[in-house]
């Protein structure tokens, strides 16, 4: 894409690509055969990309998932599902534009899809409250989850949320209780649930939508109890150490897979989801299909007990007197 924001660690790649372009037009202008040099440079560029993108630090991955061109939930939904019919409102207070939900078709089968929705630019972000849901967002999610259960539809969530909105009105309308209820309801659903952490998995606001029988995660996404910036403030009284905090908190997909917090990493196209949206959609769809096929065969009781056991396992402690 022409106007893609370039991140600092991507500069060497961009410089090299610029040189290749320059060489190409120079060859054309002068009618010279520089194909060997160009091929060499292109090979170097591919190697450089692979080297840079496969050795990203936790912080660089966070920069990637915060990239303004990262596909939002709406864009991913369009790529993954055959159809999506959005449903609105929590039937209590309002309709939260920061969280969308509705009925979609996954290979022709109806599923309920729920996802926080960020904006793609400033205007959209203001409308979407930067994808930070209020309690009515979580209550809409709860309503749609119960609806899915009634009609025996699986629930799929796509989670990219910095956190639940911290504000006076959000507190007054019960942000804490709304999140608690979403966790509880999704945790006990009698239909298959799959959560995909697609970008930022920010604390309770993300967990409220991540009570999956399966929890999948895009390669560069993070999932954390606290943002690295806030952790840095608590540890060092300022946010200069967010990069360090990001490493210490072990919030990347590889660490989380090793700790079994997530079940599977969905690979991203080289350089991140925004570099090749179509492939990204295909990778997610493929993972959803595969996991859904396993879950669809399970009886309702088993779905509930397996989900309970999945989370029950995160309580390893020491009990001897030493």
């Amino acid at each position, binding site marked *: 894409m022409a106007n893609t924001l370039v991140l600092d660690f991507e500069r060497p790649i961009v410089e090299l690509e610029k040189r290749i372009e320059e060489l190409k037009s120079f060859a054309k202008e002068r009618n010279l055969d520089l194909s060997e040099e160009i091929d060499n440079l292109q090979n170097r560029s591919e190697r450089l990309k692979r080297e840079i993108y496969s050795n990203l630090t936790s912080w660089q991955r966070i920069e990637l998932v915060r990239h303004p061109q990262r596909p939002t939930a709406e864009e991913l939904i369009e790529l993954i599902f055959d159809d999506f019919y959005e449903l609105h409102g929590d039937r209590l207070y309002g309709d939260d534009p920061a969280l969308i939900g509705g009925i979609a078709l996954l290979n022709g089968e109806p599923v309920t899809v729920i996802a926080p929705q960020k904006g793609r630019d400033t205007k959209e972000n203001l409308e979407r409250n930067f994808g930070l849901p209020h309690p009515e967002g979580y209550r809409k999610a709860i309503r749609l989850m119960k609806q899915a259960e009634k009609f025996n539809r699986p629930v799929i969530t796509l989670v990219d949320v910095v956190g639940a909105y911290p504000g*006076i009105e959000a507190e007054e309308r019960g942000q*804490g209780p709304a999140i608690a209820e979403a966790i509880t309801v999704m945790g006990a659903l009698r239909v298959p649930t799959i959560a995909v952490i697609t970008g930022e998995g920010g604390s309770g606001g993300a967990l409220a939508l991540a009570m999956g029988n399966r929890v999948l995660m895009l390669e560069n996404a993070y999932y954390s*109890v606290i943002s690295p910036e806030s952790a840095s403030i*608590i540890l060092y009284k300022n946010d200069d150490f967010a990069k360090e905090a990001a490493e210490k908190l072990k919030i990347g997909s590889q660490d989380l897979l090793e700790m079994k917090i997530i079940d599977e990493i969905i690979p991203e196209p080289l350089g991140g989801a925004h570099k090749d949206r179509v492939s990204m959609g295909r990778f997610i769809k493929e993972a959803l299909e595969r996991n859904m096929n396993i879950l669809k065969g399970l009886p309702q009781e088993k779905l509930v007990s397996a*989900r309970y056991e999945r*989370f029950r396992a995160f309580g390893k*402690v020491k*009990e001897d007197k030493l």
Partner: protein
Amino acid sequence: MFKDLFRSKPKYVTVRPQKQTDHLEHSEKKEIPGGLWIKCDKCSNILYKKDLEKSLYVCPKCGFHFVISAKERITLLVDEGCFSEFDSEMKTIDPLSFPDYLEKLQKYQEETGMKDAIITGLGKIKGQEVVLAAIDYNFMRGSMNTVVGEKIVRAFELAREKHLPVTIVSGGGGGARMQEGVFSLMQMARTCQAAELHSKKNLLFIAVLTQATMGGVYASFASMADIILAEPGALIGFAGPRIIQQTMKQNLPEGFQTAEYVYKHGHIDRIVPRPFLKDTLANLIAWHRR
């Protein structure tokens, strides 16, 4: 040397006054030298410590509720000698090997005599069996980690098995504990699920929200109780006041996120002053007996 002279005193006499302003610092003791007098955080009156003990650490002048330890809380609620603690040796495995965490824990363990921030057990309240848990605000501000989560899950599971009510007195000012990262986050999931399974057996769960119940504790099991009580003045909410102030760039309303405020907005059932708490719990449990 002096310590020996005071050994006969119960350990819990030292009171840490509650402090709403700074969550990060360990709250300081506002004791007047000599240790016999304590200054009230709210009305600034100097109180005789013996009187304060008798009034259950509620200021006799202004009704301010001082923070009490989990041990004191349980002593206050159960019939004398009727409490058997579960899992008292349970400790964290430090799942992230987080820098300086074990040292920090050790400091709190030495200060409080607890292994972590919660006490759970089987007790009797006016002769009625109940599974009881109390979170200790003085232990890393009562933040929820794997130990707190695991003990709560086991408490609910045991209560479900034995068909008993559960009462949890929360004081989770720190929300989910940062040093155990995503494992602390998972405790929100586990405690909600355990509470739900207990609830599906039509068993009673009462939450008592005390100073302070915030973040991941408020946004999980504490909000899922059948009946939610709170102590006067307790700070209760999801996002910390400072974060909200930064985001909103405006002043917070008077009394924001106090028990009285969340009561007004319909999120808790009743505010119960400490001297009435035991009787209230006893009645509620009796009315749900089957």
